[in-house]
Every structure is written in C-alpha cells, then in structure tokens.
C-alpha cells in the first residue's frame, strides 16, 4: 500500500478551517468567552518571555502583540505593529514604519522605543529568557549575551515610528518576530511586573489571575484592531489540564471551546450535535520515533528502514489515534510549503522489514528500547501498539516511560537509543531543515545526530536562496533524502481538533498551534448561556 498524502486532506483541513468564519451572520458584540488552556493545570508566569509553555502563550496572546503576526490562511507572517517595511539589497537591514494608532493598556502610545526596550530585555543574559533564540539574528545579540554591551547595535530608532533593524543573516525575520514569545512590552513599565501585572497592547486587558484556575481579561477599548475589535467584553481562560474533566465541562456547556484528544474526537464526531462544532486543522507537527543514528544497530540505514516498513501506521492512526492524525510521508508535513505531494512514504511491509534486517546482519532480531512520555498520540501508548507489530519483524520493542522533563533532558542530552516525540515542523521550512544539518548540535535540534553531506549542501544552498519557490524546492529535495535515510520512523502529522459551542464564531484553524486563537476576531451570539451571552 502506498501512502500518498493527498491534497484532499489539505483541502478538507482548509474548509474546516474557514467554516466558522464564513457564516454570513451579523457579528454580535459583547458577552464573555470561556476559553480553555488545556496543556497543564496551571499557567506558570504571565510573562511570556520567561516561558516556553504553550499555556503561557495562550494567555499572552490575549494581551500582547508582536511586531509581525501569523496568518494561518496564508501560512506566512504578516505585518502587525508596522504598516510598511523596506529591506536593503543584501536582505540584512529592515526599516519598519511602525503603527501610529497603537496604545498600551497603561495609555502609553506605542513607539520605536518599546520595540528596542523589549528586544534588549530579552537579549540580556540576566533575564535568561528562552525567547532569546528568536532575536538571535539581530546584530549585536552576541555582544549583549556575552556581556560586552547592554543594547543590541542592530536596533536603531530613526524617529518615534521608524525603526531600523540590522540582522546578521538574510533569512525572513518575520517567522521569528511574529512569535508570541517576543511580544512588545511598554518601555515605561518595569519588566519584572509583567509576570504578575502584565501590560501590553493587545485586544484584552489583564484583570485577574487565580493561579491554577483561570486568567480573566476585559476588552481593551484602545486596541488598534479593525472593525472596532475585539467583539467580546470579557475573556476567561480556564486552566484545565485534565481531558476527562474538560470533556464533562464542555458537554455541560461550562466552557465554550475545548481542545480534543483522539478519544473525544471520535466521540464528538459520532454525536450529531457535537459534531457540528468541530474545528480541525493539520498542524505543523511531525510525530516520530527518533533513533540515535550513531548508535549500532541504528547507525545502519537498513535497520531504520526496517522499522519504518514494519509498522502499520495507517492502522494505528485509524484505530488508536482514531483518525486524529495524517499519516506521515517524510518529515515535512502536508501543510508545509516544502511538502512534496508526489512523494511516497514507507508502506507497511513486514516481509521487507525482515529482509532488510537480515541484510543488515541481524537475522536473530534486535532490541529497540524507546523512551516515551504518557501522551496518548505520541507517547507510550503508541509504542505499546507497535510492540506486537515489530515483534513479527523480529524487532523487540520495549517502552521506558519517563516524565516530560526527563524525556526532554535525555533527548537533548543524547541519552537514548530511540525516543518518541512530537517535533515542530513549521512554519518556516528552512528553519526546520536546520535540524538535519550536520553542524547543528544534537542538543539544539539535530536529535538523531543526522549527518548527510547532500542534505548539508542543500541546506546551505537554501539558506542563500532568496527566491521562495526555489528555496522550497531545495528543501523538498533534502526532505526526500531524509525520508530515504530514515533517521526517524515517520509516524504522523498532527490533526488538531477544537470543539466549540454553537454560539461561538470567528475561530480560525491555526496550524502552528490550534489553541492559539486570535481572540479579537471571536464573537458569540445570544444563544450562549445567560451568564455569558451578549447583552
């Protein structure tokens, strides 16, 4: 059987993605939305520059804005806090015309100083900000990190609303600077207070954080958005890590949206009422089992291919993941611009797996210990399912369940034979290809210690290529080699699913992370429960 990622899947995702937005219904203003933050039972800090947690990002996106913003429909960054940009010929100097109508929640007008302040704050080693990676291409970053400067030389204020940024590489800075993790903070507020009393220039103003329970916001009247957005008067982000509890709460109409796991996806699809309110999107995540390609017997390509042939991933996706994933062909996901629609993935062929293994000199079989966390769609349960399958191909799989903290430490530290994980595979394909570049450290993201001269050559070429189509072509070629080399068992591309109540409108399928929604575009109609509906 050939796995062919059809454009159909893409289109399907596309329509679902637009469905709620295209309802031709008069927008209603006001009301309260009960959104959920599903990735854990608390939000650590409200200062998103001190965090790498999606939970914090979900909260931060309500009140902060970054220089660029992500457009889920085009899959590209677009201007948010600036209206115009000119790029120098070498592609290193960007001159931004900043918005003049943006105001912070504390009434301070937005100026170039705020951008300079915010980026320098992130770059300062004292803050140890995990967001630093995103601004590391700004000139002078290394000097600030090294302590020889306190401000990055690449940030230059021309006037209040003109900002010049010099980068050290010619890559599009939009992908980095659109991140919610590099928000623009007001320069007249002490950075430390952002953790408890956040001030931004986003559509909602912070009201209250009940740790472990919820974060509440109210409409910020001064927001610069079009159509006098946001529509909602109030926004509650309820912290609900336990999926079973979220399920009950959603059915009970206590929450307006819920992110679904595969079990609930299946149940909600089967329910005539609930199936009406499902938003699906192909997310830019690739789920894989990664091998340490320097460690025998997995230093042999044939052994890695044998694993790929030995697993019936369609069956696992169909039965265990319950259709909440797209079978993976290679590393680049279907929604990536570098995805190759003609490529063929590994088909399920246990005989071929056995043959490859014998060819590699392992007729009596091999052991495959996999470290895994508890995640239902890219953790121990998946490994459990491949145990009987690979058993037939003479590969003895075992699971070592570990906590997330340990999993991540061991993967970045190279302390594994194989691991199962979900890896970001977007939105910038070039940035993703970097993870297969032999000069990228294992701890950075070349987890499998992948090294292939041809891929290195293609990556270096793509880096220099300014034309987007040609660049994507190079990346596509590299993805083909990676598929053949199989440093991973390519499992699936995530299908994220969000359930929403019938009165909720304006959700968009964000393939970066479905749970990150543009709250300013969401509105609810008056069929909502009395305590939340617009007056």
């Amino acid at each position: 059987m050939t796995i062919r990622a059809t454009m159909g899947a893409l289109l399907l995702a596309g329509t679902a993605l637009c469905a709620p937005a295209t309802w031709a219904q008069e927008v209603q203003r006001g009301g309260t939305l009960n959104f959920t933050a599903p990735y854990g039972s608390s939000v650590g800090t409200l200062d998103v520059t001190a965090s790498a947690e999606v939970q914090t990002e979900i909260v931060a996106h309500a009140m902060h804005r970054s220089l660029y913003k992500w457009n889920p429909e085009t899959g590209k960054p677009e201007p948010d806090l600036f209206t115009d940009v000119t790029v120098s010929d070498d592609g290193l100097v960007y001159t931004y015309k900043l918005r003049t109508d943006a105001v912070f929640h504390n009434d301070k007008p937005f100026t170039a100083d705020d951008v300079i302040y915010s980026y320098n704050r992130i770059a300062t080693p004292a803050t140890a900000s995990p967001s630093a990676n995103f601004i590391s291409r700004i000139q002078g970053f290394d000097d600030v990190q090294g302590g020889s400067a306190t401000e990055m030389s690449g940030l230059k204020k021309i006037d209040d609303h003109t900002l010049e940024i010099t980068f050290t590489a010619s890559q599009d800075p939009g992908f980095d600077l659109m991140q919610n993790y590099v928000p623009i903070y007001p320069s007249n507020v002490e950075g430390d207070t952002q953790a408890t009393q956040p001030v931004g220039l986003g559509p909602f103003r912070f009201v209250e954080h009940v740790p472990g329970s919820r974060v509440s916001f109210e409409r910020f009247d001064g927001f610069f958005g079009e159509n006098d957005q946001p529509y909602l008067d109030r926004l509650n982000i309820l912290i609900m890590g336990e999926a079973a509890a979220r399920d009950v709460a959603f059915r009970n109409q206590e929450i307006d949206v819920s992110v679904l796991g595969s079990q609930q996806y299946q149940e909600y699809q089967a329910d005539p009422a609930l199936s009406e309110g499902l938003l699906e999107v192909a997310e830019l995540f690739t789920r894989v089992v990664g091998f340490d390609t320097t460690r025998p017997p997995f230093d042999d390509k044939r052994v890695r291919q044998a694993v790929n042939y030995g697993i019936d991933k369609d069956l696992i996706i169909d039965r265990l993941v319950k259709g909440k994933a797209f079978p993976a062909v290679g590393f680049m996901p279907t929604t990536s611009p570098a995805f190759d629609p003609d490529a063929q993935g590994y088909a399920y062929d246990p005989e071929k797996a056995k043959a490859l293994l014998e060819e590699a000199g392992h007729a009596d079989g091999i052991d495959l210990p996999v470290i895994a966390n508890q995640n239902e769609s890219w953790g121990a349960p998946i490994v459990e399912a491949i145990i009987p399958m690979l058993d037939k191909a003479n590969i003895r799989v075992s699971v070592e369940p570990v906590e997330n903290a340990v999993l991540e430490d061991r993967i970045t530290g190279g302390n594994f034979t194989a691991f199962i994980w979900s890896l970001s595979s977007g939105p910038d394909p070039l940035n993703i290809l970097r993870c297969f570049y032999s000069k990228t450290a294992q701890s950075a993201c070349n987890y499998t210690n992948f090294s292939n001269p041809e891929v290195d050559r293609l990556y270096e070429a793509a880096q220099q290529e300014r034309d987007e189509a040609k660049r994507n072509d190079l990346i596509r070629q590299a993805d083909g080699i990676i598929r053949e080399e199989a440093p991973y068992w390519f499992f699936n591309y995530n299908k994220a699913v969000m359930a929403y109540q019938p009165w909720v409108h304006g959700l968009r399928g964000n393939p970066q992370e479905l749970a990150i929604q543009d709250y300013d575009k969401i509105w609810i109609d008056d069929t909502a429960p009395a305590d939340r509906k617009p007056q």
Partner: protein
Amino acid sequence: MGRYILRRLLQMIPTLLAVAALIFLIFSVLPGSFAGTMTGGGRRALSPELVAQINAQFGLDKPLPVRFWDYLVRLVQFDLGTSFRTREPVVDLIAARIWPSLQLALSAMALAVTVGIPLGFLAAMRPGSLLDSITMIFAVSGLSMPQFWLGLLLMYVFALQLGWLPSFGYGGGQLRNLILPAIALGFAPLALLARTTRAGVLEVMGSDHIRTAMAKGASPSQMIRWHVLRNVMVLIVTTMGLQIGSLLGQALVIEKLFSWPGLGSLMVDSVAIRDIPVVQGTILVIVLWFLVINVLVDVIYAAIDPRISLR
C-alpha cells in the same frame, strides 16, 4: 498553655529542618532539569548558552553542598526561594494557593465529620447486625476507590447527567464548585472516621463506667449524651487530627482532576517541570500544617480529657 504551645512549636523546627534536608536530597538526585522543560515539548530548540544562563540564574551551576547551605540560610530567614518557572518568590505562589487548599481540605473534613461520625454511631448501636455491616461496607467502599475514579464518577453523575453542579474549577471559591471535589476528597476520611467512631463507641460502651451508668438507670439517650459522646471524642480526635493534617497532601490527585488551584496541584506541576524550589516549599508547608494540627490535637485532647495535662 501558651508556653506549652510555644514549646511544641519550637520542637517542630528540627523536624522541619530534617524534612527540608530530606526533600533537598531527594530532589538533588532527581533526573531531568528545569532547563530541559523549556523546549516547550519539542516546539523549540534551546542553545547550550541559554541552558547555561538559566542554570546560572537559579544557582544550579553551583556544587550541591553550596546549594544546600544557601537553601538552609534562606530557609531560616523564612525565604523559600524563587520559582524557576514564574520567577516569583515561592512564598507568594504558596500564599495564592493556600486558601483554596484549606477550603477543600476543611470542607472535605466537615463532610467526613458530619456523615462519618453518625454513621459510626449507627453501626455501633447494633454490632454484628445487617445494619452494621451495610453501614460499614458503605463506609469502607469510600476507602476502596481510587480517588480520581471516584471523582470522575461524581463528575459524570452530578455534573453531566444531573446537571446539578459545575464539574470543575474554582470559580470564585463558591460552595457549588467546592461540593464535588470535597466529596471525592472527603470520602476516605469519612470512612476512616466512621470506622474509628464505631470502634470507639463499642469500646466505650463496653467499658465499666457505662455499666455503672446503666445501673444508675440512665436511658440509652441519656447515657450517650452524658457518658459516651465525650469519651468517644477522645478516641476520634486523634483520627480527625491525622486526617485534617494529611488532607493537604492527599488532595493532589483531586486537585488535578477538578482543576482546583490548591497546593497539591501546584506541587505535582512543579515536580513535572522540575521547579524544585516550589516543590520544596509546598512540601514544607504541607508538613508544617500537619505538625501544627498535631499540636492543636494535643491541646484539644487535654481539653476533653482531664487525665491529660499539657506539660
């Protein structure tokens, strides 16, 4: 009595220090690191420089004995350190969680007391009877279910099927939100109390002075009021105290399940992301609570039983 309490409070200090040392020791050999969790679950790569920065910021680059000494020095100044994750003082994080935690623990206990003790009495009135067995099996069944399982069942029945109560969350700390988690948490202490009460009543009822009371011509209700209740309380108070004392620590599963913002869920989360100062702080607070309750129990004990004097 004031002096007694003061002395008992002072006696806690070595225990607390020992707990602190033990926790420090356990978590110093814990695999996984906070910096490791900053990848956001495969979403981004961390440069080694950043990992070093993060570790330096929290003093994790120093040798273990130095860290332990720093920890102790801060501890004796009532400084529990700074959370890696939120970069706020641990004391503040705990302060925000302590009231919900107490609310949950105390209401669970209130439930256990108001239902468990009468049940125990009921069972003890006819020992060996069908009523006794049914009552005790009901009570013991509370001890026989995994907490999260009981919580889930309650959620499904009372929130989803009947729609009487909200299924989750703290709300503003209203009673409505409190009921289900309190039942889920309180069922086990309820069972223990019912059991202790039954045993206590049977023991008191079998004692000589109850025979005296009967010989005096007291009716059963007079006998219970004048001679049983107080004596049984002496036996129950210990169980109650132990339960109240340990409920904060037992609540972690329930708090996670019901998204209840208590100390338990804070602790579990912090263990998961290796936010060690918070873990240490919450455990210390949970232990402190247990110790304080113990002193309180002893004081109450002395108030009920004239044979015990506080020395």
